[in-house]
């Protein structure tokens, strides 16, 4: 009912239903590792204001180091 009202006045701003693609149950980290394995020398990120760019291998390595650093803090 609500979605019909919204559709009439303002276009579809809310909708729900089953999509075509199934959900992925990977974590972001898992996806990064998979992509790095497939394309280790492709560029993952490019930072214009810092003037650097990193391949997936470099990016994963830096992210893992930072993650290890964060975990080494005593939570």
């Amino acid at each position, binding site marked *: 009912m609500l979605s019909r009202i919204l559709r009439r006045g303002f276009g579809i701003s809310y909708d729900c239903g089953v999509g075509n693609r199934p959900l992925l149950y990977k974590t*972001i980290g898992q996806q990064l590792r998979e992509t790095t394995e497939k394309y280790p020398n492709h560029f993952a990120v490019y930072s214009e204001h810092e003037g650097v760019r990193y391949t997936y291998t470099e990016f994963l390595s830096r*992210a*893992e180091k*930072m*993650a290890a650093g*964060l*975990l080494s*803090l005593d939570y």
Partner: protein
Amino acid sequence: MACALADLVLVNINPAYRAMELKYALNKVECEALLMVSSLKKSDYDEMLHTIAPEVSSCDPGELQSKELPYLRYVIKMDNKVKHKS
């Protein structure tokens, strides 16, 4: 990405926040670790943090206990890619 790998919850903060909004947000999520840069455009984050919680600059490493930010234990500066425990 590091937070995703480390199973840590990442909350982004609106960079346009002023000191009191920042304080509200940090306490709302019970933020234990703050990753920040010194400044961005017209915002001086070092100064902002010092205004809210001056203990950050003066306390011993690993011993941060701020009255205004009671949950905060670590401040990590992204400038120079060096981590400081506060």
